[in-house]
């Protein structure tokens, strides 16, 4: 394609972390990159937000998926990002005060049998994570294309599994389909422990402890990072953002700029410009236009194809496949600004990831209501207090409580406006059972529902991963075939967001893979 009027080689729509990573790799390869961000600041879903009373927070609060390789490639530490030096334990809160503390290699407060089983449990999961690790940072192959590179990639997948050894390979192929319920039953006795371990298998998706097929994959995605040590089991080794999400995003932004990428904020893209069935540029809401050889969307697939591009430019079958993509969020975010450190019953040190999920039935019944668009009064949550690590996130002496809450359905019967105050109230009631004096410390509070995430962050469906993370929307089917190699049926139009392989979480792999695909254009196979 030769459009001499193009001002840039690549335009990236959206400065989420994947967009920034993609821009960075492309700029480092000598491409002229322009990143357009609709919001006033970069970061997308990971952008920092202000909570009344001088608190700084962000939707994600931990960093299980980031790899050291990415930090090094982009030299993020040169731009103010500090590698986390400590990991936090997970504490399964027990209403009776007999909590269980989980670290990467041990349990505290559990029976001897459970402690012993935990070793085998983490050994297996870490081995599985290791086996599939190379595939997160790689474009998915096409199956049955006959192309040698695809065949090689599939062969490597098989080989990696086989290298697990006969026993572990067989277990991998069985366990990958197990629900968290059965998996934890096979290893452990304690209900509290089983619930706490199930949490990581289900969080972020429309999954409950009894849901088959996708739980282990969901956990393996969380084991893809290595900042806490190579493939450490993260239920026991949570890493928070040193300096808040803001410090990582600022480093990503500055590193990209230093590499030569141009970033424009308050630049909301209205549509992608087409010429001869090829994407050639973008038009902003304010009428400005930019042209480039490659247009990359960091937005979710539905926004990218229907809002930015327009269904009329897509083959009908493909449009149908994008439309059927399941992307309704299930997780909410609670932020509480507190004037002092909350005290949890029988807990000496609140510096950990605290889980309110006393049993798997508790999680399951919250899910059962969410399935029908209702919200349970007994919600499960994952709490951290980032100000214990980084006091600068709140005014002196104050603390921030940050919690992921499951399950809040995007499509709630009656609408969120009607239900939000009640849900916030019931969350505070639940918290009060574990931290009785917490209400008196609250300075400010906000609850972000999936609907809020959709509106504030322009993510259709308000889903963490821009779309359900499950086997049927994974790898060759993410977001759907025909677009799973980051290219799309429209020449010159690419995807680099969490809706593409490998999915969401602060990881940057989709951005990395998309950049590689663009740099390899011409070498790779065409999409079907």
């Amino acid at each position: 394609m030769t459009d001499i009027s193009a001002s840039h080689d690549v335009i990236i729509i959206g400065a989420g972390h994947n967009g920034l990573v993609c821009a960075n790799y492309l700029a480092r390869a000598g491409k002229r990159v322009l990143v357009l961000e609709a919001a006033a600041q970069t970061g997308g879903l990971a952008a920092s937000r202000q909570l009344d009373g001088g608190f700084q927070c962000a939707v994600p609060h931990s960093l299980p998926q980031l790899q050291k390789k990415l930090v090094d490639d982009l030299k993020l530490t040169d731009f103010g990002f500090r590698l986390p030096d400590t990991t936090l334990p997970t504490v399964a809160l027990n209403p009776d005060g007999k909590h269980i503390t989980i670290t990467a290699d041990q349990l505290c407060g559990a029976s001897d049998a459970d402690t012993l089983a935990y070793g085998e449990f983490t050994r297996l999961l870490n081995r599985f994570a290791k086996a599939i690790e190379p595939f997160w940072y790689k474009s998915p192959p096409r199956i049955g294309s006959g192309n040698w590179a695809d065949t090689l990639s599939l062969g490597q997948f098989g080989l990696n599994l086989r290298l697990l050894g006969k026993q572990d390979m067989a277990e991998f192929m069985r366990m990958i389909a197990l629900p968290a319920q059965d998996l934890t039953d096979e290893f452990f006795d304690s209900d509290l422990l089983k619930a706490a371990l199930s949490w990581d298998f289900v969080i972020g998706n429309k999954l409950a402890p009894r849901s088959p097929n996708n739980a282990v994959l969901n956990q393996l995605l969380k084991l893809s990072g290595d900042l806490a040590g190579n493939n450490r089991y993260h239920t026991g080794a949570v890493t928070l953002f040193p300096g808040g999400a803001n410090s990582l995003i600022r480093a990503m932004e500055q590193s990209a700029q230093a590499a030569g990428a141009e970033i424009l904020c308050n630049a909301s893209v209205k549509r992608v410009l087409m010429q001869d069935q090829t994407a050639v540029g973008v038009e902003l809401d304010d009428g400005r236009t930019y042209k480039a050889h490659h247009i990359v969307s960091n937005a979710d697939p539905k926004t990218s194809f229907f809002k930015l591009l327009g269904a009329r430019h897509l083959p009908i079958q493909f449009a149908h496949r994008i439309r059927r993509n399941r992307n309704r969020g299930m997780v909410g975010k609670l932020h509480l600004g507190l004037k002092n450190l909350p005290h949890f019953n029988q807990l000496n040190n609140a510096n950990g990831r605290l889980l309110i999920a006393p049993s798997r039935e508790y999680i399951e019944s919250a899910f059962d209501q969410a399935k029908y668009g209702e919200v349970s009064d007994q919600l499960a949550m994952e709490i951290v207090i980032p100000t214990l690590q980084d006091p600068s996130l709140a005014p002196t002496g104050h603390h921030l409580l940050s919690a992921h809450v499951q399950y809040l359905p995007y499509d709630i019967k009656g609408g969120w406006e009607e239900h939000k105050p009640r849900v916030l109230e019931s969350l505070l009631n639940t918290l009060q059972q574990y931290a009785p004096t917490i209400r008196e410390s609250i300075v400010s509070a906000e609850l972000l529902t999936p609907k809020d995430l959709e509106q504030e962050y322009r993510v259709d469906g308000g889903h963490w991963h821009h779309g359900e993370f499950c086997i049927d929307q994974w790898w060759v089917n993410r977001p759907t075939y025909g677009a799973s190699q980051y290219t799309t049926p429209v020449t010159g139009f690419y995807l680099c967001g969490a809706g593409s392989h490998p999915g969401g979480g602060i990881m940057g792999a989709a951005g990395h893979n998309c950049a590689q695909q663009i740099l390899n254009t011409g070498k790779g196979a065409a999409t079907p």
Partner: protein
Amino acid sequence: MATAFGHKPILTMTPKYDAIVIGAGHNGLTNAAYLAKAGLNVLVLEKNDYIGGAAVSRELHPGWIYSNCSYVCTLLRQSIHRDLNLSKYGLMIVPYGSTTFLGANGSYLAEYTNEAMTYRDIKRHSPRDADAYVRYHRDLMRYCKLIRYFLLRTPPDPTSFKPRDIKEMIYMGRKFLDMGEETIYEFIRFLTMSAADFLDEYFESDLLKAGLASASIIGTALGVYSPGTAYVLLHHVMGDVDGSVGTWGLARGGMGAISNAIAGALQDFGGKIKTNAEVAQLLVRNNRTYGVTLTNGDEIHADIVVSNLDPKRTFTKIVDAKDIPAKLRKKAENFKIRGSSGKLNFALTGRPTFPALPQNSELTKGSLQFVESLEAMERGYDDWKNKRWSRKPFVELTQSSIWDPTLAAPGHYFVSTFVQYCPADVEGGWDQNKKDAFAKSVIDTIAEHSPDFEDLIAHVEVRTPAELESEVGLTEGNIFQGELTIDQLLFNRPFPGYAQYRGPIQGMYLCGSATHPGGGVSSACGANSAREILLDLKRSKVNGAAVVPEEFVDD
């Protein structure tokens, strides 16, 4: 009796056979028939005083013959039917025609035997769905075609480098690739997703979605929203009657006719069946089996012992813990064999009416399914999770005697219903009161659609998972001998490393529905197992022809 040497006299007649099959269910009988066909001296041991396991015809009320467990048939492999010449032994499968979904407020939607009629009927509800149904059917048939290649084959072990396993993996891989790139991607999705998500992609009518989803939960401890249920749906449409894929039929004379026909073939090959003979223990010496003991103390010897029981029973009850690796016992304990279904079988003194259906149409004779919506079905599953039977159960009603007059006298009817969900471990345990209450909930559901049904009942047999377990020997009353989830399918069935029908002890094999290809009256598990046994004995061919059919017979 002691002798001068302190031993039992050597001439005590301990009977000795080439092979013993434990359990005269249809798979056990099929297995025995093939072993006998290859010339082995075979004995089948059955704990009940009748054969057939869950494929039986029993006169439970004078004048009415009940197919009181399995009640319809589609998976029975045609090649086995032909190969064992089962028609000669009286087997006749009669397709039963239409399936109608009866919804709330008198609505109905029918799958006729005639596609054009089905199209027209769906169109009454949604023109869009009528068109989508054509696509839906085409897509399902593509997936069926793939799976059908694998039914009569032994699953390869993907962790093995043995030439045969590699050859089989390549065979499977090629069939998979033959589907073409797009169908491959769609199949991967289909295999792992939920029935509700799958159906939502095609249809908008609640009644149609709910009706089609019923096949995804029958016998399964999962809900329509649970990932993995789309495959269960396929399991219920991949069978055939005389090559008509997706068609269901009834065995004339009740489902026992299938067991009896296979038993007939077995006996003609010289095999023997002993009823009232419950096996207590597998005899093992030096990691080799040499027979079994019965609960009455008798000992019967054989070099080969095949268990048609589920792996939980096999490895935790009749095999001594010291004879198998502790890891295997653990696998058996973890094996998922969950009771989720109940049944009510009725002797009726007249033909019930269903006012919602057009009078005198073929629909009044077909299968009737009482459904409402996906959500209502999922709520039924939520009840099961909470150890209750579904307050609004899914009920499938089959009017068997309309198609098979041998089951009841003229004017009388045998009707069987299948109910989802009914827990094995109901809160507080099953007792008569709970059983009655469960039955009432089902009869009330039927009564909503048929005002005269209740008055016609001469006798009702209520079967909760507890009865299925105690009578048939299916642990927890699971009709498939184990959940049909990916972790328990193909090379994972019943568990990794044991999917090729061989047990951990030499001479010991498995042949029940807990092995590949799983539940349903298919005879495939029994036949596949026999093929492996004969391979080990180097007797898989007689006069150059394979004893057990393997090749897919294209339909």
